[in-house]
Every structure is written in structure tokens, then in C-alpha cells.
């Protein structure tokens, strides 16, 4: 009697084991096929890099060896917003480059980095980068793809190592699939990571401000804006050249040397005394959103910037830009009109675009 019960229970156990095993195998089989589907090479969706109407061609094609695809763009966007690119997880690219601030760092002269460190320069806005042959305030970076290496490895910014970032991406469950979608295989290396980030950052185009709409005949300036535009063309445009609102040159605009930073700008890159105190001319597009201003963010309002050019700038520095030796004469009324015009350079279709948002 006892043995029959034992036998029965054994049969039940075997049956149960068999059923569980069967379910497990079927389940596993299904799982495999799902994984395979995700791993299967996806068809790249190629994107066209569109040059806004009337704009010059970029000086070099930043995507010549990095063909734009939707998959590459999306991977780059994910990386841009991923804190794991920084040592303690707190500092994604986006921590200093905020979309609502035209990808500058809103209301920060310097940005925060690893262990409460401050950066030593004001985080620049990110847009229309394809027209910029040299990046950073001192132009030290010669290609959009290699730019992230700077902040990523800087001990006062993201404070990471390339090795460690790649390790984190490789062990992640999603990234290998995204790299495969973008580049054909699951391999994750620094080149692919940097190319993907460049696909995102280089795609951020700002060309739809009120100014642009006026140029296209879709809107009209007010009288004050119109007057401001006329003033802008004579007083500011030699450096802040349309349509990019920068000529991408490096100039000394007569700021005193910050005694803490002793930052001599481009001279550090070129080792040339003639480049002392020269910094990149920033674009004035989205200028209302990118305060504070100047390479060290020392001026908190556009009013203060205009005051600098009309009365504040130091005219005794030997490398002062020749266009500024007499400062820029601007009356109070002209200043107001200039401000009205500069307001028309804000492009909310870029700063609010879901495509660039996290």
C-alpha cells in the first residue's frame, strides 16, 4: 500500500517535472527567437542632412564618414542623456547642455562637475555645429566626433575613462542592440560611440526663429525689431555674421583677465602670443536663452553685454580686436532696439522639439 502511494507520487513528480521542463524549453525557445529578432540587422533609415535655405554649405561634411541614420541619431541621443557616461552617474552631456537653454547651461556661469567641481569656462550652446570647424571657446577641438572626449575624461566634469564608459555600455541590456541597429553588429567601441553622439549633436539645427521667418517672408519685424536689425548689421554683424550669427573666428573683445582662471584662450592651443585672450565669437542665435555671457559667463544680461561693448571694454590689450579699438558707440535708444532684434533670434521650435528631447 505504502509502495503504491510512493510510486504514484513518483509518477506525479516525474509528470510535473516533465511539464515544467516542457514549458521551460518552449519558453526558452521563444525567448531565443525574440532575442534573434532584436539582434537581426535592421534596415538603416538614412537621413538627409538638410542645409537651411539660403545658408552656406558647411565648410566640411561632418558626416562624410558617418552616414546619418535614424538609428545612429537615436543611439546618440540616448548617450547624450545618459548619466552613466560620467563617473558618478550625475553628469550626462545634457547636464551642462540643456535643450530649453539652446543646449547651453541655463543661468550658470560655470557648470557643476564631479565632486562639486566647477568647470573653468561657460558651457557653450549646441546647435548648427556642422558649420563650426573648430569647437570650444579656444578652438582646441578639430572635429565634432572627438569633442566628447574632453568633458568625458575631464576630472572636473564627467571624470570618467573611456574604458569604464565602454564597459558600462557593453554590460547594459539595451545598448548592444542599439549599436547593432546603428552600426550592423553589437560591437561597442569608442569610435562608434563618438560617431553616434555626433549624429545627434550635429543634427541640432536652429533655423526657425522669427528672424528666419522674416527672411523667408513668413513673418514681419515690428518697427523696433526692424530698427534693431539695421543697427545690428552695422555694429555687430562684422563678427556675428548672418545667417549663423558668428564668423567662427577667435577675437579678443577686451575683457579683463579673470585672476582665478588666468585664461588666455586660444593662445593655449596655438602657443602664439598673438592669440592671447582670443576666444571664439559665439553665435547670437538663441542668445536670450544662453545667459550668462562671455567665455567665463561673467555678464548676466544682454544689457550688460552691450554696455561692455559701448563703454566697458579694455582698449589697452595688445591683441584687442581692431574692430573694437574705439569700442562700439551705441546710444540708449539704439541699445533698446538692438535688444528687440536679438529677441527675434530665439528658436523655440528647436528648444522645444520632441526630437531632441530625452
Amino acid at each position, binding site marked *: 500500500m505504502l509502495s503504491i502511494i510512493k510510486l504514484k507520487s513518483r509518477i506525479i513528480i516525474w509528470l510535473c517535472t516533465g511539464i515544467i521542463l516542457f514549458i521551460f524549453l518552449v519558453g526558452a525557445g521563444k525567448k531565443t527567437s525574440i532575442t534573434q529578432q532584436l539582434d537581426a540587422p535592421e534596415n538603416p533609415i538614412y537621413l538627409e542632412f538638410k542645409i537651411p535655405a539660403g545658408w552656406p554649405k558647411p565648410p566640411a561634411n561632418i558626416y562624410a564618414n558617418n552616414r546619418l541614420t535614424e538609428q545612429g541619431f537615436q543611439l546618440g541621443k540616448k548617450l547624450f542623456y545618459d548619466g552613466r557616461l560620467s563617473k558618478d552617474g550625475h553628469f550626462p552631456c545634457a547636464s551642462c547642455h540643456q535643450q530649453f537653454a539652446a543646449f547651453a547651461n541655463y543661468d550658470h556661469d560655470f557648470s557643476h562637475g564631479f565632486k562639486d567641481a566647477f568647470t573653468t569656462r561657460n558651457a557653450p550652446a549646441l546647435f548648427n555645429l556642422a558649420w563650426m570647424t573648430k569647437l570650444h571657446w579656444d578652438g582646441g577641438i578639430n572635429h565634432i566626433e572627438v569633442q566628447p572626449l574632453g568633458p568625458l575624461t*575631464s576630472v572636473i566634469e564627467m571624470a570618467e575613462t573611456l574604458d569604464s564608459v565602454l564597459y558600462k555600455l557593453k554590460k547594459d541590456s539595451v545598448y548592444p542592440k542599439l549599436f547593432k541597429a546603428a552600426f550592423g553588429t553589437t560591437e561597442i567601441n569608442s569610435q562608434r560611440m563618438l560617431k553616434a553622439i555626433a549624429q545627434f549633436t550635429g543634427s541640432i539645427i536652429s533655423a526657425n526663429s522669427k528672424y528666419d521667418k522674416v527672411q523667408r517672408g513668413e513673418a514681419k519685424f515690428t518697427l523696433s525689431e526692424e530698427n534693431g536689425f539695421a543697427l545690428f548689421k552695422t555694429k555687430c554683424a562684422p563678427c556675428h555674421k548672418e545667417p549663423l550669427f558668428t564668423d567662427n573666428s577667435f577675437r579678443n573683445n577686451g575683457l579683463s583677465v579673470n585672476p582665478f582662471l588666468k585664461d588666455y584662450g586660444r593662445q593655449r592651443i596655438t602657443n602664439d602670443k598673438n592669440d592671447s585672450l582670443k576666444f571664439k565669437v559665439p553665435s547670437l542665435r538663441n542668445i536670450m536663452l544662453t545667459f550668462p555671457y562671455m567665455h567665463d559667463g561673467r555678464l548676466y544680461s544682454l544689457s550688460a553685454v552691450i554696455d561692455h561693448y559701448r563703454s566697458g571694454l579694455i582698449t589697452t590689450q595688445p591683441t584687442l580686436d581692431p574692430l573694437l579699438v574705439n569700442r562700439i558707440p551705441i546710444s540708449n535708444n539704439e541699445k533698446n532696439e538692438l535688444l528687440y532684434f536679438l529677441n527675434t533670434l530665439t528658436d523655440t521650435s528647436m528648444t522645444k522639439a520632441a526630437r531632441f528631447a530625452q
Partner: protein
Amino acid sequence: MITKLLILPLFFAVTFTGNKQQNSMAAADHSGTLKITFINTVKGEPIQLNTGNYTNPFAEVYSISKFKYYISDVTLSSSGINFRQQESYHLIDENNSASLSFSFSLTTNTYQSISFLLGVDSIKNVSGAQTGDLDPLNDMFWTWNSGYIMAKMEGKSLQSKVVNNKVEFHIGGFSGTHNVLKKLQFNFSANQILQIKKDGLSEIIIQADFDTWWQNPNDIRIAETPICSVPGALAKKIADNYSNMFTIKNVINH
């Protein structure tokens, strides 16, 4: 799974075919293999990283913890015709024995000279993110002033008054007056005959002697300049010195 198994060999086949085309020096039917091996030395003796104590011409004692440099655009010349290795970028790193040799296929011929660039050409310095030997992971790419470090030595010396008695020569600069690129050519001597035979293996052994970095033509004293970490005049002086560091030690036709 089966698809994966099928894709893998296909992937390798494609990869290797790609490589063969890149090394377009060699016509597939008439080629052998050339192996180039670097032996890094100080005064003729193989470098002992970290443990070796060396004395420079100014009686300054130092040790070496890192010694690495780029060799690129390797070109063999036969009767005035150049056979150039395509995508030829090699990081020679004393700390990585696998990096001390590289091989490629070469058209059957007798060659009289070899030339290469010590460094990475300017185009690659401005062309964005690279991979392989040019990957910034190799710690030979400047992140704040884009460009490759062409050659790097790190070590210590009591004559260095900087933190931890560091000695660091990071030599780079690819444009204008900062250009440290050195195109070097070596003619094989009468007893060094490089004959690439069909399916054969030949080897060139090149010695790189670090002792050359200190002088000829420029005196570099640790006490004065223990650190060089930016392009400029000092980097150029050291590069002028190290352009003399190579000697063709041996050519072997196996």
C-alpha cells in the same frame, strides 16, 4: 542560432577579404609576408620598464614606465617603385609585446629600402573618431587640443622637481610650425637583402633606442625640462632628436 552560426563565418570572410584589399601592396598571386619587428632599447640593451635605471648624457639617472610611438605609412621600395601599405597605422607599445611586430603581404620582389612616418599623418589628426591602433583608448590622443601624441615616454628621475619626480615626454603636433612628423627612410645595407618570395616570410628587425631622445641636435636635460605635454618648440626639439632612434638591425628571409 543557426542563422548566427552562418553569419559568423560570413562576417569573418567579409572582414578578411576587406583586409586583403586594403593591403593592396600585394597582388594575391605573387606575394609573400613581410613581418616588421621593433626592439626598444636604451644604449643597445632591451628596455626594462620600471626596473631599469638609465643614465642620460648629462649624468641624470632615470627609469622608464611607458614607451610607445606610432609608425605609419610603411613603404617598401624596389628599383624606385614604392609599395605602400594601405591604412598603415601601428602603435608600437613596449608594454604590449603583441604590438612590437606587425605583418602584411607584399609583392614578390627584392627591396632596397623601407620608409615610414614616425607619427600619424595630419589628415587622420583632423578626421574625427578612429579605431584600432588609432583608438583614443590607447591614451595617445589629446582630448583638449585634438591630435595624436606621436611618441610618448614616461618615467621618473630624481633630477625632476615636478610632482613624484615625473619625467613625461608626450610629443605631438601635426600642423604648421608645430609639426613633429618625421618621414624616415632606411636603405638596406649590402648584407641586408629583403627578398619577398611567393608565400614566403621575410622579417625586418628595427631597433629603436631611447637614448637618442636626449641629444643630437638638441640637449634635453631632465633638470630643465622634465615635462613636455603640448605641441610647440620643446616637442619639436625632442622630435628632432628621436628621428635618429631607429636602426635596421637585421633582414631575414625565412
